[in-house]
């Protein structure tokens, strides 16, 4: 093998690993964001959920999910073949010819596995403060092994959505929308937190306990997103791809910035104040918006797309709250509603995309995830129950599920 080919292979592999590590770091971001936005009595449990779901996602995706999403054999464009465990690393013999792999197979797995963990992290926040820990982890098991990989196969594994021309660069649909729909179905079956909606129809805010945690969580996600979108170019080792990766970094950053400002101004317009949690959600909304197509827009356009996401997320959070869909961290709005926006914006800058196919892709992802998740949550509800007891909810799930308090010295009332 030529030294230059090796070097190029090495650079792409290293780039992939660095990007993957950044995406892994997003797990910490979700954990902190959620820990900041729940009440202190539910904090240890949400942390436990976050680290456990990450571990489960890694194991299940290694066992079966990865092969399902990128199958060696496919049964139909809808149904991938199934096989267990990871295959071997590329052999040096394979390193010839035009379609020789240009990065390590293990680095590809690494990059992919942190994506499924991201999708699953979206779910934990929406069902926080009331769902049983072990029921949640049971869902995570099946979601990361089957539900996510199968729809992932449709697009990124070369299934029917890919064939149809559906465009989703880094996963506004495959990752974010899919996670959000799973979260939404969970919330539907679970109901709102006690005290969230008054008998008289009033909406009672249940403020999160720790804003600095929510803020650092958001900054972590923002940083990690460079890996998420930047790595999705898959190659960096030549002139064109290097430029593409750089453009993606810039656009990702600009969209987040646009989201922050738009969300802040929207809130200011309505209430005259600067709601920090909306600014944070605005950043994330900007990021989700651009994820569907972070390469084609100019930086100025990326800022505007992000801003659109920032406005939409505020509207969506308020609307869902009015509809009594109780999502303590806004995950359904940020990743679901805004994820759809991102997908529908693609045709504006990417001529390979069209609105019909984008809508079809959304329908497919939503349909599949909604139905399978609903069945799965339903089964878990029937067998183990989804929700902790009323008394446990009042006292906080930290004590009943984890037997530990997140801030044992500080809390006295609440």
């Amino acid at each position, binding site marked *: 093998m030529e030294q230059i080919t090796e070097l190029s292979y090495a650079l792409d592999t290293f780039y992939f690993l660095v990007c993957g590590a950044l995406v892994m770091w997003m797990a910490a971001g979700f954990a902190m964001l959620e820990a900041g936005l729940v009440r202190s009595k539910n904090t240890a449990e949400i942390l436990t959920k976050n680290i456990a779901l990450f571990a489960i996602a890694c194991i299940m995706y290694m066992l079966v999910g990865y092969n399902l999403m990128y199958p060696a054999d496919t049964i139909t464009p809808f149904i991938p073949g199934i096989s267990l465990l990871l295959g071997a690393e590329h052999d040096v013999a394979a390193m010839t010819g035009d379609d020789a792999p240009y990065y390590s197979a293990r680095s590809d797995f690494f990059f992919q596995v942190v994506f499924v963990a991201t999708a699953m992290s979206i779910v934990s926040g929406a069902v926080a403060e009331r769902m049983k820990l072990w029921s949640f982890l049971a869902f995570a098991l099946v979601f990361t092994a089957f539900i996510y990989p199968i729809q992932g196969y449709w697009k990124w594994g070369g299934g029917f959505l890919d064939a149809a021309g559906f465009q989703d660069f880094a996963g506004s649909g495959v990752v974010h929308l899919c996670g959000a729909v799973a979260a939404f179905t969970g919330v539907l079956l679970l109901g709102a937190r006690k005290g969230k909606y008054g008998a008289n129809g009033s909406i009672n805010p249940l403020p999160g306990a720790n804003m600095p945690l929510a803020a650092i969580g958001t900054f972590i996600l923002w940083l990690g997103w460079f890996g998420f979108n930047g790595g999705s170019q898959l190659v960096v080792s030549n002139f064109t791809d290097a430029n593409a990766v750089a453009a993606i970094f810039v656009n990702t950053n600009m969209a987040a910035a646009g989201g922050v400002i738009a969300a802040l101004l929207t809130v200011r317009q309505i209430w005259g104040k600067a709601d920090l949690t909306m600014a944070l959600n605005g950043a994330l909304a900007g990021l989700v918006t651009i994820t569907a197509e972070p390469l084609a827009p100019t930086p100025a356009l990326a800022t505007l797309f992000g801003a659109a996401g920032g406005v939409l997320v505020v509207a969506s959070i308020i609307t869902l709250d009015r509809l009594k869909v109780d999502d303590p961290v806004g995950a359904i709005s940020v990743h679901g509603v805004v994820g759809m926006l991102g997908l529908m914006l693609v045709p504006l800058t990417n001529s390979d995309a069209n609105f019909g196919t984008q809508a079809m892709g959304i329908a497919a992802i939503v349909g599949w995830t909604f139905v399978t998740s609903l069945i799965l949550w339903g089964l878990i509800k029937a067998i183990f129950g989804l929700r902790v007891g009323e008394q446990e909810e009042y006292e906080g799930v930290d004590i009943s599920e984890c*037997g*530990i308090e997140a801030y044992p010295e500080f809390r006295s009332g609440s």
Partner: protein
Amino acid sequence: MKLVTAVIKPFKLDAVREALAQHGVNGMTVTEVKGFGRQKGHTELYRGAEYVVDFIPKVRIDIGIEDDVLDAVIESITTSAGTGKIGDGKIFVSELIQAVRIRTGEDGPVAL
């Protein structure tokens, strides 16, 4: 004047406040406390060691009132704070010999 001190379950605070408002009680001072009593604490687990947390979060309300509303106030707290389950809390009453509004220096019932 009487000083009524009620120790109640935290989530009952709003209900009590609203109930008292109906008796013209529009001032109170609230403290976060921990209670120990018949209601058993819960078991916690920390790094492999289980232990009992005896002290349960409660809220203490102090209310200075005029003598003639005492019974109504006790009744009202009992009703609004009660769940019928152990740990609902206590009401203690003691005599107040003086009450002063700092802002104006007024004293006696008018200061409450």
